[in-house]
């Protein structure tokens, strides 16, 4: 740990301090226009103000709610669809091209459609989050099961295992491994879905604030929100990483 602090992390911290300090100085002394590039202190001030008054909490709640519900539903549905498609070739025949197409397009273009169908409330954001996550999870699980190490299936069978034992000992752990390997990407997707959905049309949420900031040409607020979303996603990434390391501890030991 001490070696880390004196090594790469120390150098990165120094670089960051120089970067932010330079930015702050240039902005304050009028070398760059704060209208376009406000100083870090102003951005931080906005964030502090929001948390001090608590004004941001309902927006955070809306975005986190949409992202996490979309993430959970997307993963559950993706696992179920992937599992059934892998075990039922006829279903896979129908499902695979649809999923492949959904995978190929930038799925956020569905946002206007979800707004028309579901309105500007939470459900349209959940839907967008969901559609981003479900396709990713579907392919992870579907390909994961098709690529299950067949030697393991044979081992378990020769050791007297029936279909239930096979699912418990081989298929479920394989699927967990595949889903966990994609969890960080899925978290990012879920947040993208929620924020983009709010950006398109809503009355609450970080994406809504972002859209408001943009329409009022408020660069400070825009950059503060970008910073906040970055921090939130990083926190979720870390949590996802911890969960992955726990569930896949056989891989990291």
């Amino acid at each position, binding site marked *: 740990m001490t070696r880390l602090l004196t090594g790469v992390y120390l150098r990165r911290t120094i670089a960051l301090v120089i970067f932010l300090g330079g930015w702050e100085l240039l902005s304050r002394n009028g070398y760059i226009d704060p209208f376009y590039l406000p100083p870090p202190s102003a951005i931080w001030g906005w964030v502090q103000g929001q948390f001090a008054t608590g004004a941001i909490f309902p927006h955070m709640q809306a975005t986190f709610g949409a992202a996490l519900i979309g993430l959970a539903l997307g993963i559950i549905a993706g696992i179920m669809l992937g599992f059934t498609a892998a075990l039922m070739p006829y279903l896979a025949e129908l499902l695979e091209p649809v999923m492949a197409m959904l995978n190929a397009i930038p799925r956020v273009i569905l946002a206007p459609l979800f707004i028309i169908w579901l309105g500007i409330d939470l459900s349209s954001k959940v839907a967008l989050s969901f559609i981003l996550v479900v396709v990713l999870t579907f392919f992870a699980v579907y390909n994961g099961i098709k690529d299950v*190490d067949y*030697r*393991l299936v*044979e*081992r*378990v*069978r*020769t*050791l*007297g*295992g*029936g279909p239930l*034992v096979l699912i418990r*000992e*081989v298929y479920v*752990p394989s699927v967990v*491994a595949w889903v966990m390997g994609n969890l960080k990407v899925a978290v990012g997707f879920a947040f993208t879905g929620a924020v983009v959905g709010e950006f398109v049309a809503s009355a609450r949420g970080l994406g809504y604030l972002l859209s408001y900031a943009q329409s009022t040409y408020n660069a400070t607020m825009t950059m503060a929100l970008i910073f906040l979303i970055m921090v939130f996603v990083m926190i979720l990434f870390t949590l996802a990483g911890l969960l992955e390391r726990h569930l*896949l*501890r*056989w*891989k990291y*030991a």
Partner: protein
Amino acid sequence: MLTIEQLSLAFGRNEPVLEDVDLTLEPGRFMSLIGPSGCGKSTLLRAVTGLQRPSSGRVHLNVERKHVAFLFQDDALLPWRSARDNVALGLRNQGRSKRAARAIADEWLAAVGLDGFGDRWPRQLSGGQRKRVAIAQCLALQPRLLLMDEPFASLDAIVRHYLTSDLLNWVERERLTVLMVTHDLEEAIALSDQVVLLGNGPRAHIKGRFDVPLERPRDLVQVRTDPRFTALAQQLWRALSEEVAPLASGIGRPALKVVNE
């Protein structure tokens, strides 16, 4: 223990790899199958376990399935299960409780020289240690028939020697019936009572059955200097060469291991 009658094996609608094979394995006997690669000897073993369905003929096991153990060529264990749980799996499939199965698994891990390794994940073990876990996995089931598909092919010479002699001790102690597939002619003679030579595939047939005139139990090192061993090795080598030669004629002399004479 095991009777195979007029067995033919094919993958899908392809030409059979193996045709009209008859084999009888008496209890307590150790039989090796050798032959050029691609002759279907591994497929034959898979047919005995039920992993491969015969296209014609039959495999008759005179022993319950749960008393048949299969030691595979590679050492693939369930990567997400500890060494202990990998060994316990077969026991749990036999209806034992998790706790009882784990307790027995620990005993078998100790018996194969892995005392205290129960909590390790497979990727924390060396190739030889994984093989030992796989052996414990088989022996824990207290099998009466042990099937082995080139069980030590991937190991280095020293590990291979120790594992083979350890396993041979178990075979002798438990009077196990064994059917082993190998491409190592000397290993086949050193271990078995009978060596069965399969011809070239597709449509491979049995080309010869050779009884090994050496008493058991044997010392794996000393047995190789026995004149009866070397005589049989030469005889088998000639028979095998006839099968390999047609394949190898296009690429010159076969670069195979020379039997000491």
